[in-house]
């Protein structure tokens, strides 16, 4: 089974068709739209598999198919499709996880009255995301990037009747747009210096040697080389989309959307777009840029894990863990290990989708209760959900040897340790491991053990098979996927780097790091158990205070307010913005308004003068002229007899006369 790059467009086109069907179907066509969406994405998955097998046959090749979109003056704008292992792995992952999430949504959204729109938006989102993945042109990538942003806006604000959801959608859209502005500037600058936006184009693409050489030799701006500046501008886009510090604030708020959306957008696909972009343009990034990326990533990883410690909302905890994990991925790219980043991205996509769907299952069963203080004791009532959720958590924490997260995180730590640059990211990552283990222990303990602390939690029961089956499938992959990239046989990393041979090395080579991280995980779990596990029996009511809040109240409150980032932004950017707006308003009203008022008065005055002159002087003359015109018009209108025969006869006679004149005149 192989696939030519020429037909790669089929992968995004199928969900797009499903979205079109969804848009054109009346509201009652629920099953049709959902069926079309699922079937389309499943077909895309099969085609992606074909693409994957093609790409793996020759991992070093970048198969492309380029074509001219339009011509503008002397410039031709060209787009294209690209098939390499990165694209193929990502497509396969997105379509597979996406299909499972679509199926899960069948159950989760079943009672929603806007069920049809939901699947329409989901399909649109999937189409945009897949388009982003197969694009061989940064322009096409940017277009799809923005479409992804639009679809996420629609989906986060899906329950738009809730003010918080509408606000969250707006926040997500605007925050990512700030990053996109940098992305767009980077694109323009790149086009200016490289003359093309195609990634691979038989030696003329921006990622190929010629263009890279030209960029490297370009002049420097303010101490930065042009290549670094472009790389950092592109990184701005990734910061916005992937929720990196300082633009991470939208991601937790985006949990206002339906849970499958959270799973799709904030676990598997959209947030991965930023990491994907960085991995895609990796050849373009200079060491300076990489250093910045690594540090931003490290800060994000630490920040997300820290805040997650003191959250109460089930989905919000998962959201901050996503922020933290995305930080890890960026860190990996920054320390020069994009294949480790993508490996972590793939494993993370599966176990985070699993966690979100598990959370969705819990929330659905507990009548839309998301506060972990209200939950508890669910391990008995929802055995299957609990089991799969626990597998996801252990993968996220990185419990040694049997869970995928362990191996991918290990690859990142290894790369961070081996880097030639600063070792700050490495230590930040180590601290992050402890914190991750800690807050996940808290999450599991609070949600699934102890007493049910509310009516909803006590009466929860397991969900239908349409919701649990995807959980089981994802859980399987959350375990199995790690074995594709163990240090002993790093098959995935090798393929991603374009090698056909796999150079494994013994576990003992990095055994120190292995043991260290395992120990840190154990430390985190132990701390979590000590603080939360032991007190579970005592807490039977939702109002019981959090043990950490008792131990360190002020830190806990500060963390609970998410390090007061929103307040900080409100106090700085918000205040400046408000001031500018007020100033503009004042300026508008008094200065420009005054001028306009003055002009208006002037006009009024001249109008009065004019009217007087008109009535006294001019009107008499006009009246006389009008009378003449009317009379002549009446005279002409007599020719309009209303007799169609007469017109036709006139026409025919006129033709004869003219023809005679022409013939006789021509003969003379």
């Amino acid at each position: 089974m192989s696939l030519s790059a020429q037909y790669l467009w089929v992968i995004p086109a199928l969900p797009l068709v499903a979205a079109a069907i969804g848009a054109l179907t009346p509201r009652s066509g629920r099953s049709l739209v959902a069926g079309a969406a699922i079937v389309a994405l499943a077909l895309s998955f099969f085609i992606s598999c074909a693409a994957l097998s093609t790409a793996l046959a020759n991992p070093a090749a970048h198969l492309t198919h380029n074509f001219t979109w339009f011509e503008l003056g002397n410039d031709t704008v060209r787009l294209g499709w690209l098939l390499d292992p990165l694209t193929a792995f990502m497509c396969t992952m997105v379509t597979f996880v996406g299909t499972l999430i679509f199926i899960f949504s069948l159950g989760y959204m079943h009672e929603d009255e806007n069920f049809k729109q939901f699947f329409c938006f989901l399909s649109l989102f999937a189409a945009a995301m897949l388009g982003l993945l197969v694009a061989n042109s940064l322009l096409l990538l940017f277009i799809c990037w923005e479409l992804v942003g639009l679809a996420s806006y629609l989906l986060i604000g899906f329950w738009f009747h809730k003010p918080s959801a509408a606000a969250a959608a707006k926040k997500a859209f605007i925050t990512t747009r700030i990053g996109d502005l940098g992305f767009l500037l980077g694109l323009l600058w790149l086009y200016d210096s490289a003359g093309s936006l195609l990634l691979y184009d038989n030696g003329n693409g921006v990622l190929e040697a010629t263009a890279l050489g030209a960029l490297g030799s370009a002049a420097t701006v303010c101490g930065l080389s042009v290549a670094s500046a472009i790389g950092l501008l592109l990184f701005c886009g990734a910061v916005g989309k992937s929720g990196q510090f300082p633009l991470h604030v939208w991601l937790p708020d985006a949990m206002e959307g339906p849970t499958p959306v959270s799973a799709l957008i904030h676990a598997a696909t959209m947030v991965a777009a930023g990491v994907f972009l960085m991995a895609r343009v990796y050849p373009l990034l200079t060491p300076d840029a990489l250093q910045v990326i690594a540090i931003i990533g490290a800060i994000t990883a630490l920040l997300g894990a820290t805040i997650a410690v003191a959250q109460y909302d089930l989905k919000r905890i998962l959201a901050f863990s996503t922020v933290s994990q995305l930080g890890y991925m960026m860190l990996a790219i920054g320390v020069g290990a994009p294949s480790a980043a993508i490996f972590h991205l793939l494993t993370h996509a599966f176990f985070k989708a699993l966690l979100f769907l598990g959370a969705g299952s819990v929330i659905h069963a507990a009548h839309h209760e998301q506060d972990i203080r209200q939950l508890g004791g669910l391990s008995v009532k929802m055995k299957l959900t609990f089991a799969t959720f626990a597998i996801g958590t252990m993968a996220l924490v990185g419990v040694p040897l049997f869970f995928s997260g362990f191996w991918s995180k290990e690859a990142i730590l290894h790369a961070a340790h081996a880097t030639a640059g600063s070792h700050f990211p490495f230590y930040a990552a180590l601290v992050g491991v402890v914190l991750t283990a800690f807050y996940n222990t808290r999450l599991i303990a609070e949600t699934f053990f102890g007493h049910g602390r509310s009516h909803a939690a006590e009466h929860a029961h397991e969900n239908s098979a349409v919701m649990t089956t995807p959980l089981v499938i994802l859980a399987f992959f959350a375990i199995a996927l790690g074995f594709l990239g163990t240090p002993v046989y790093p098959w995935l990393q090798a393929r991603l780097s374009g090698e056909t041979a796999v150079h494994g090395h013994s576990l003992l080579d990095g055994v120190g790091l292995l043991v260290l991280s395992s120990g840190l995980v154990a430390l985190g779990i132990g701390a979590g158990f000590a603080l939360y596990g032991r007190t579970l029996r005592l807490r039977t009511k939702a109002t019981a205070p959090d043990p950490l809040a008792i131990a360190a109240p002020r830190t806990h409150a500060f963390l609970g307010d998410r390090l007061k980032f929103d307040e900080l932004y409100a106090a700085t950017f918000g205040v400046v913005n408000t001031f500018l707006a007020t100033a503009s308003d004042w300026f508008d009203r008094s200065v420009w308004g005054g001028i306009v008022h003055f002009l208006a008065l002037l006009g009024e005055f001249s109008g009065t003068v004019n009217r007087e002159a008109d009535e006294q002087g001019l009107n008499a003359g006009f009246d006389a002229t009008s009378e003449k015109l009317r009379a002549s018009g009446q005279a002409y209108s007599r020719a309009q007899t209303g007799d169609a025969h007469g017109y036709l006869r006139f026409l025919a006679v006129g033709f004869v006369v003219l023809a005679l004149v022409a013939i006789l005149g021509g003969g003379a």
Partner: protein
Amino acid sequence: MTLSGPLTFLLQLPLASAAGAADAFLERLPLVARDWVTSWLPEPWRWLVNSLLSIAVILSVFGLLFAYVTLAERKILGRIQNRPGPNRTPIPFTKLRFFGLAQPFADGVKSLTKEDVVPRGADHLLHFLAPVVLLAFSILTFAVIPYGRHLVPVELNAGVLYFFAAGAATELAVFMAGWASRNKYSLLAAMRALAQLISYELPLLLAWVPVVLVAGSLSTTEIVAAQAGWQFNVIPHWHVFTPWGAAGFAIFMIAALAESNRSPFDLPEAESELIAGHLTEYSGFKYALFFMAEYFGMIALSGMAITLFLGGWHAPSPYVEFIPSYVWFMGKLSALLLGFIWIRATFPRLRMDQLTRFAWKFLVPLALINLGNAAFWSLSFHWSGPFQILRWLISVLVVVGPFVLLGRKLSAGVAPRVYRYAV
């Protein structure tokens, strides 16, 4: 001209049968016979006699077919309704009955000898012209159908168009009949018949456009040639064996039923409700002519359906290719005619509003979608491997999806009738 012409001709016969299927003796038998006849004549006359011969053969073969289709219809309807059907007409001057095989001729004699009643005040000329025009145009349609490998009366570049252009003229005859009768019920019935004919003209035309699109030709011979060949030697490459072809064939046959005023679309005549619609004021041989033209129309439409969708004269498998092509054509024709008769015995008549709604709200949109489907099919002809399966899947979905949706819309609010007191 001497007698040696025909004689040498006969001597060549064994040579002719030695070659492949296309040259098999049976296959070329009609040509041989024709050339044998014309070889008696001087050269300049041959083309004329050739044409006259084909006209004569078509008229006699299909005239006879018409006669026996009426008999078959009465016999089969009788069988289905548990009665014997006509079985008493003997061979003249004997007592031999042969299941009533002479019945059509007795009918012919009867209608010829009946009085030809023309209402007072009727438009005599048009009253006379209506059946003539109808019959003339019905017979004209036979000209372009390929009956066998070497048997096409007229090879036209735009043969399919010719067929339907000639078919369109029958509406005129219906109008003439209704108007010339000077009977307001005749006129009303003619208007109804026209509404039906025009409504079903559209799906009929739209149903064959996909075939033209895929075959890339309007010529009937080329359309048949496009359906040559077999998959695995058992599945012929007929258009009916593709998703769009199957849908097109179904639409075509439904529209053909309506165009030839057959049950369940026989509202214009509806013998059991109206008297005979626009034919009320016709009697004797004129009525018989109308009857004949209707059967000719049905036979011609079936022939066209065979040409467009059922592979024309092609055999369904190479193993049975030794049977000559015209036999296959006639076999398929008989099967379709049997289907017509069976449908007449099975389905109840539609109501007028159901009839038009069915055409405009179901058949026309479906045919249009099917056109797009065929376009997709011909654009994706080079897809191979797993894409071939995808192609079939998409094509089937495009047919089945609208079918289900439109069907649901059409039958919305309609439930099967419950017969409460009938057991």
